[in-house]
């Protein structure tokens, strides 16, 4: 019986035999070929994904596929939407990041009018490394590439341009998914863009998605999740990106506290700056793992060693 790979190989050979223009024409000997412009990674042009046709497709995908799937997998509770009552115009939504499930959950949680005027800052080296993943990311979630491996003005310029055109941005200031369930320190990108573009940052805390599809897992499982929106934050006069970023991180920490305890207690702790850390204790990996299970209130039950007589 033919395997899938041998079938694919045969198909590829047949396709190659079709020759030009079905396959690429070879460069003639002696002719210096021009260096091909890199069109992947941070150079990937996502303009096409913001045209009406692509936006329509994305809206259909979000409402008919993503929303029911996330309802089934994440049973989300959405808190704090009333805090966006006075928000007008484009904004930067900054959330903690535990899992690939965060993006579909947030896209279906962020209310109108921002939901369908939203671009997602996605890692250029992960989501835009092949043509297929680039196209899929740009079309399905409205991703735009952000270079996280090198310092470049390109991504910043591009996103500033989009915010200037009225698009809102969803960004994960941690720069990637949590490797062990604990959060990571916030980077300054969201704060820098907010100051540069003069738009507010909406802090968001997402909990529970780490159990749905945590880093390293391929298959999702069901779990409850909570999305908590904070009040839009504006940079203060003369505030720099570093200190504004620290404020955003503190606010997300407080939202996490609110999710796990109560609004009143979370506010009290935020006031005296004693909100529990998102990044966990600075101890060995196995102890961090224990600490996480304690934080989730899910310690291993003592196994009964003897039968009940």
């Amino acid at each position: 019986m033919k395997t899938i790979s041998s079938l694919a190989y045969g198909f590829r050979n047949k396709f190659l035999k079709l020759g030009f223009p079905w396959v690429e024409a070879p460069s003639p000997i002696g002719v210096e070929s021009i260096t091909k412009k890199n069109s992947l990674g941070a150079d990937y042009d996502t303009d096409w994904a913001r045209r009406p046709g692509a936006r329509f497709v994305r809206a259909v995908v979000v409402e008919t596929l993503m929303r029911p799937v996330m309802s089934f997998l994440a049973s989300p509770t959405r808190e704090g939407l009333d805090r966006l009552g006075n928000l007008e115009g484009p904004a930067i939504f900054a959330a903690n990041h535990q899992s690939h499930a965060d993006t579909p959950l947030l896209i279906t949680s962020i209310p109108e009018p921002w939901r369908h005027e939203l671009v997602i800052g996605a890692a250029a080296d992960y989501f835009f490394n092949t043509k297929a993943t680039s196209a899929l990311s740009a079309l399905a979630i409205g991703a735009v590439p952000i270079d996280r491996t090198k310092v470049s003005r390109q991504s910043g310029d591009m996103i500033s341009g989009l915010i200037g055109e009225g698009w809102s941005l969803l960004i994960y200031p941690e720069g990637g998914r949590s490797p062990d369930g604990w959060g990571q320190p916030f980077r300054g990108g969201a704060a820098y863009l907010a100051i540069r573009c003069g738009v507010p940052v909406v802090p968001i805390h997402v909990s529970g998605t780490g159990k749905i599809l945590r880093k390293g897992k391929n298959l999702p499982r069901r779990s409850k999740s909570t999305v908590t929106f904070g009040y839009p934050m504006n940079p203060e006069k003369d505030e720099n990106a570093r200190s504004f970023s620290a404020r955003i991180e503190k606010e997300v920490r407080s939202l996490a506290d609110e999710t796990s305890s109560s609004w009143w207690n979370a506010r009290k702790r935020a006031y005296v700056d004693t909100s529990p850390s998102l990044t966990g204790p600075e101890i060995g990996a196995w102890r961090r793992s224990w600490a996480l299970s304690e934080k989730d209130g899910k310690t291993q039950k003592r196994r009964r060693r003897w039968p009940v007589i």
Partner: protein
Amino acid sequence: MVVLGETPHGEEVHFCKRAAESDLLVYVNINLVSMDGGHKSTATGLAGYTGLRHHHNPHTLKNSKSIMDRENSALHASNWRMGDVIKDAGVKIFQIETTVNNNTFGREGPLALLQKREWEWSARDRAQFIAMQRGLEILPVKTKRSIFGGWQSPYELTSIQAGEVEAVHQKTIENVYAQQLVQVEGQTDILTMGLPYICPYNVNSIMNPILVMCLGLGYFFNLYKGKPLVREGGVLIMSHPTPWEFHPVHHPSYIDFFEQVLTETTDPVEIEKRYEKQFAEDEWYIHLYRNSYAYHGVHPLYMWYWGSHAMEHLGRIIIVGGDKKAVNRLGFQSASTLQDALEIATDVVGPQPTITHLKTPPLVMADVI
């Protein structure tokens, strides 16, 4: 028309009376190729048949090697002699010559891929080409012509020269050469070229078989300086549909030339001797030329002479993808595919020929060393 004089070679200079009597003649030109401009603009452009016959004849054109290289073109030498007579007669000419870049199909847009080199086509370009090819297969000919004929090239100016004719033309030629001249090492056994859908004489019209011949053998073959791209006795393979089709309003005398003259002979010298006067002085053609939208009666013969040098130089001429009967009428061989054409060519140039392909656009002029 007025006669302004005669050159030392006995060439009568006929000139448009209105232009000759003007205080100042301002001539504006676009030099797409190096053949255009200079004294040829006025000595040819404002002359009638009696003046033109001195240089638009098989003898002159066979000795223009090439018509794109002014220094080695008998056609230009004759025009320059006539230019001197025009100058001596007191006609004041203010010549404005311009050159444009080679941006025929734009850097972006539906036809941009046609001016890229095939090995630089992206997957999108190739998909677009396949779609274009399939679309053109099903579209009616008239629609196809209107699509391509309606294309406006986004050319940009590269230079403007103005003033005295020869000084201006010298500078213009330098600018054209700077853009188009490409050094090519050695001549080839087989020269292949794809012919475009348009030539100077089928704007909003039909590219009939005679114009196909003129574009390939008259213009593209002559895009050289020094030596032709293909060796003497070599083979020229051109690709063009070459339909047996004529525009009855624009090209009436072409129909008669194709039906009556080419069935008798394809030799330019013989054609000149036996048919030129008849076509040039035919009352009906003159009437259509003056009162309708027809080219002059003698025009198809001039088109044929334009290929004289190539026909004399080449061992065989093959058209790929053309109407077989029309191609045979031209005296050429037809082939269905390039592979077949190369097989036919081996009869002339042997089994291991060298092949050079002239890719257009962009327009290039070969400096064969």
